[in-house]
């Protein structure tokens, strides 16, 4: 793999120590929000990389939940609490589910893709809600994470998990940034624009969509494991449509222009929600809805577009319209 880093990757690496430092500086409640945001931010990243291919997943909560429950079940039934094994379980479960579901979903686009992803996530919601062994709608608790036999407790345990979460999220974000610039990532942009042409160029759009879907699922499941460990609890709400809707909300709010955008967007949404609830406890959703509406109206490419300058793409003048035929 090419180790040369671009600005986004350098920025993410520079942000890592700062991210870790705030755990020691900022109030505990803010750090908790950051930690939760990092977990859900990975799911938003999963939504974002699919959006780059023109696919909107209204069921990304499925893999958030698959990751959380896979880790939770490993802990609950086998007594395993090692972070690395829990992450591996979440990734494996997501690979299996997305690998199979991808064969169906890669054939669909636009609203059909959105509705099918939603339908599959709601099937899991129904299954988990009616499974007493997994706590039904209440879910179940997870133990504190251990690290290759080391079991930190109290404040040390909290800080260790936070540090690992920050590290994993930054590594995932860097890898996804590389994916977006890779041939498959590049083909995704082409699929969004014109799938017929992609096939005529000699590659399978279905294949690229399948790969992207599985990758998004894996990242979301990692988010699910980290989120579940941070809260020490999983429940079927993780795969409910309202949760999936939040991830789409974040992607629209933040935009798909940069891999860092959904991570920042997730944190902004958490903060927005906190203040919305404080300002208007019974109608806080209206505030969120209004923000969404204003974003779509005035920043259709999301908050990240405020940081980027649009390249000048002047329409051709008469002289440019002429095709040169001589030397």
């Amino acid at each position, binding site marked *: *793999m*090419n180790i040369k880093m671009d600005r986004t990757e350098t920025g993410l690496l520079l942000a890592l120590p700062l991210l870790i430092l705030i755990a020691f500086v900022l109030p505990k409640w803010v750090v908790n929000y950051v930690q939760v945001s990092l977990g859900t931010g990975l799911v938003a990243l999963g939504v974002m990389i699919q959006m780059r291919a023109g696919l909107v997943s209204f069921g990304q909560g499925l893999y958030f939940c698959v990751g959380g429950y896979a880790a939770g079940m490993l802990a609950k039934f086998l007594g395993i609490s090692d972070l690395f094994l829990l992450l591996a379980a979440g990734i494996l479960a997501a690979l299996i589910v997305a690998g199979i579901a991808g064969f169906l979903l890669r054939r669909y686009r636009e609203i059909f893709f959105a509705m099918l992803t939603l339908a599959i996530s709601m099937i899991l919601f129904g299954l988990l809600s009616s499974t007493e062994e997994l706590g039904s709608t209440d879910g179940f608790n997870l133990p504190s994470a251990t690290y290759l036999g080391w079991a930190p407790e109290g404040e040390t345990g909290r800080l260790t998990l936070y540090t690992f979460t920050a590290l994993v999220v930054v590594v995932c974000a860097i*890898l996804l940034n*590389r*994916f977006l*610039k*890779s*041939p*498959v*990532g*590049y*083909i995704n*942009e*082409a699929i969004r*624009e*014109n799938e*017929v*042409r*992609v*096939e*005529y*160029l*000699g*590659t*399978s759009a279905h*294949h*690229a969509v399948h*790969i992207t879907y599985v*990758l998004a699922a894996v990242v979301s499941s990692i988010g699910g494991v980290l989120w579940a460990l941070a809260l020490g609890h999983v429940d079927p709400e993780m795969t409910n449509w309202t949760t999936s809707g939040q991830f789409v909300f974040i992607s629209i709010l933040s935009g798909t222009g940069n891999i860092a955008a959904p991570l920042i967007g997730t944190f902004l949404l958490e903060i927005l929600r906190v203040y919305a609830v404080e300002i208007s406890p019974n109608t806080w959703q209206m505030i969120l809805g209004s923000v969404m509406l204003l974003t779509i109206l005035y920043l259709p490419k999301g908050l990240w577009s405020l940081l980027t300058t649009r*390249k000048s*793409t*002047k*329409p*051709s003048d008469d002289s*440019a*319209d*002429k*095709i*040169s*035929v*001589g030397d």
Partner: protein
Amino acid sequence: MAVLLETRNLERTFGAVYAAKDVNIKIEAGEVLGVIGSNGAGKTTFVNMVTGYLKPTAGEILYKGEEITGTPTRDITRLGICRSFQIPQLFPELPVIENMLIALTVAQQTRPVLFRPAINESLKEQAMELLRRFKIDHHAEQEIQTLAQGVRKLVDIAMATVANPDLLFLDEPTSGVSADEKMGFMKVLIDALKETRTAVLFIEHDMEIIERFSPRCVAFYEGTILADGPTEEVLENKEVREFVIGSEFHRSGNAASTAASVQEV
């Protein structure tokens, strides 16, 4: 010359309607072939079948002696058969150079690569070289949606050539190009393709262009081949004149004026 493509009794129906029937064509390596016919004659259906977009209801397609009937589009492209479109199929919100880079990225990708950058300086240079060949390099940074139709057509064709095809289908390359630019446009195109010795089949409604650039011509009518042979013979064919080009078309006069206009260019 070796036969590159051969179709045998190719047929395609849509319900009770025959879009193509008993289409038998042989295309040799490096040859330039013009296809004429009124709208609905089966020209694009033929191209769609050979390039895998439509599955024939009967008949065979052989490429370099191997049967490729029903092969998916992407595999046909990989075999060396590419096409451009009557309505350019591009990535409209991206600049010309990005369109070319995507095409090159796909052409050079043999297996999915997930974490290695797609774009490098060498690829950019290849993209610019292709744009220079088609004399549209000065449009490199412009978004497709801001370009004139003629330039879009050339980008569409340039993208179809990134994989160095042995056989290239051009579906009405001059449609949407203004009358006074058509000859110059085709000259740029044919000159660029001559460099790579690509066999070219182009669909065209302008008989002057057919006369000027295509030594061989195939006339389609109601899904069947009405005539196939040297262009001057096909254009003089009684049935072709009656059903395809119209009896008022006069070859010699048009040919003379065409030659003059090309010289002016």
